């Protein structure tokens, strides 16, 4: 029984020793084993033949001692390492960038709308047609006369067409006039889009009808559910409110706070706008790449060069332009930088498992934060000034994500390579060692030092078959006086 107890006590000490700092663990364990031997001898002498727990109680005292050792000599640097070189500072900076990006995304309406695109569903085969010279979607581009000619002709590719134009119009609310951006559109506009309404219905009608945005309904009408059917004055006309469009549903070019649906022949001539069309199912192949170029002729025979954008292709949200560039960045990473962190084969000292786990967790945390940053920052930058449909923003997001991913991954690998495996602080004080002409005879490269006095990092100037990756040299306690504060 006593033999079993002695083995258990030794195992207990070995387990508790894991809490002690790795560089002092062996000596700590040696002292406790030595003391335990004497404790056991004394207790056996006093209680021979019976089970004595004195030595076991003595071993329990090793726990506060190991914790005290950790507190005094713990894993931190023996000298004060500059805060900007520490691992926590690195994670803090990444976290601040990430939080700032998300905070902006939470308060920027265009970015919110883009991030929640998956809630927005349009009919499959729906396309937006605009002038090739206004492909950014920033300006009205198709004359209403061209649309009328188009709509009156036999359609080979389209099942339905609708026109809309954004104009600042006087809107009388509660006796006060306000100039608001109002969409003047075909009566079948919303039925063609297939957008669900918050309340009411936007079915085609021969009478002009008004659709309110959720914002204006709540702000100016106190979200009154009995608003449907009420007559309001828009410009010179009296129209009835037919429906309220949910917040974030409007994702076509142009800011809008209300939509005036009227028959095509009632839309005032002279202006230009956009055309929304429903492709016939057998024509979907024409825009399989999400964009197509077509030519149209007006009544005077003038040619109009037009872009046809697949609208349903553009409602997949920002994730579509995130995964592909991140994947591309991971593919090109080995070509841009070495992914070997260090030459472990030559190291005679084995890091403890706990330190290795901490290193891996730090690297993983860094990569996770970079993945978050390369998602949110491009979305913020690309969509902060757009409203809904913006092909240029999608392209910008793709390019920014690709650039940030490549930069971020390269930085993460380079940063990890220059962090001391013991304390995770960045090494400093680079010093050139050796001369170039002696590369193949002796050693030539750069030596960096951990400010905590744990390690030296050797980086070869010219990678060779026997020295191709950075090497860590672990310093024992005899070096400690050099780094004393």
């Amino acid at each position, binding site marked *: 029984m006593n033999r079993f107890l002695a083995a258990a006590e030794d195992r207990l000490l070995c387990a508790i020793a894991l809490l002690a700092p790795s560089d002092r663990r062996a000596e700590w364990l*040696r*002292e406790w*084993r*030595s*003391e335990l*031997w*004497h*404790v056991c*001898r*004394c207790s056996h002498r006093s209680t021979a033949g019976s089970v004595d727990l004195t030595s076991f*109680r*003595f*071993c*329990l*005292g*090793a*726990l*506060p*001692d190991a*914790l*005290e*050792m950790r507190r*005094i000599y713990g894993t931190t640097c023996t000298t004060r390492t500059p805060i900007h070189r520490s691992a926590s500072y690195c994670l803090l900076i990444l976290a601040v960038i990430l939080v700032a990006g998300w905070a902006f995304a939470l308060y920027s309406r265009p970015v919110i709308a883009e991030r929640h695109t998956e809630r927005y569903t349009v009919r499959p085969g729906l396309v937006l047609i605009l002038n090739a010279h206004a492909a950014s979607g920033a300006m009205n581009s198709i004359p209403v006369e061209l649309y009328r000619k188009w709509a009156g002709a036999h359609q080979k590719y389209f099942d339905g067409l609708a026109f809309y134009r954004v104009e600042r119009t006087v809107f009388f609310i509660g006796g006060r006039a306000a100039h608001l951006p109002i969409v003047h559109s075909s009566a079948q506009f919303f039925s063609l889009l297939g957008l669900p309404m918050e309340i009411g219905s936007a079915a085609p009608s021969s009478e002009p009808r008004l659709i309110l945005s959720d914002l204006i309904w709540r702000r100016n009408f106190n979200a009154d559910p009995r608003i449907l059917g009420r007559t309001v004055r828009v410009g010179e006309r009296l129209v009835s409110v037919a429906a309220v469009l949910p917040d974030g549903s409007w994702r076509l070019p142009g800011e809008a706070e209300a939509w005036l649906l009227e028959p095509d022949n009632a839309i005032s001539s002279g202006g230009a706008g956009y055309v929304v069309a429903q492709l016939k199912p057998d024509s979907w192949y024409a825009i399989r790449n999400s964009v197509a170029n077509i030519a149209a002729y007006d009544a005077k025979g003038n040619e109009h060069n037009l872009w046809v954008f697949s609208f349903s292709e553009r409602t997949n949200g920002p994730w579509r332009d995130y995964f592909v560039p991140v994947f591309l960045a991971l593919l090109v990473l080995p070509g841009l930088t070495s992914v070997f962190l260090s030459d472990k084969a030559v190291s005679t000292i084995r890091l403890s498992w706990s330190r290795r786990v901490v290193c891996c967790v730090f690297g993983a945390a860094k990569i996770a934060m970079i993945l978050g940053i390369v998602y949110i920052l491009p979305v913020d930058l690309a969509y902060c000034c757009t409203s809904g449909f913006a092909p240029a923003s999608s392209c910008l997001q793709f390019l920014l994500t690709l650039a940030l991913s490549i930069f971020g991954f390269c930085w993460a690998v380079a940063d990890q390579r220059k962090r001391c495996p013991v304390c995770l602080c960045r090494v400093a004080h680079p010093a050139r060692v050796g001369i170039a002409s002696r590369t193949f005879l002796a050693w030539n490269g750069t030596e960096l030092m951990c400010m905590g006095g744990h390690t030296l990092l050797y980086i070869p100037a010219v990678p060779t078959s026997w020295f191709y990756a950075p090497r860590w040299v672990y310093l024992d306690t005899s070096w400690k006086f050099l780094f004393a504060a």
Partner: protein
Amino acid sequence: MAQEPQLSHTAAMILQAIDAGFVYGFSVMENLGLPSGTVYPALRRLERDALIRSQWEKQSIADAELRPPRKYYRITAAGGSALEAARRRYPLLERLLPVEEARRS
């Protein structure tokens, strides 16, 4: 003038025990009646503050006595002055473990 370190009562007792000749952890425990969880962490703190220093016994001596070598603690000059200050502060400290008596035993 350098400020003298303020020792806790336990730390002062342990320092007094080491000065009295109980120079390894277990003997300090036995004579003071303190648990191991108190004595060894206190020894670490005293060593950190350079009031005591530790030294391993020679392996040959331990081998001759068929036992593992011990880690001995010695009081330093700074530790001596700290102990003097502690004795002034805790007058009963010397009576607890009289140095002369301990050395005779």
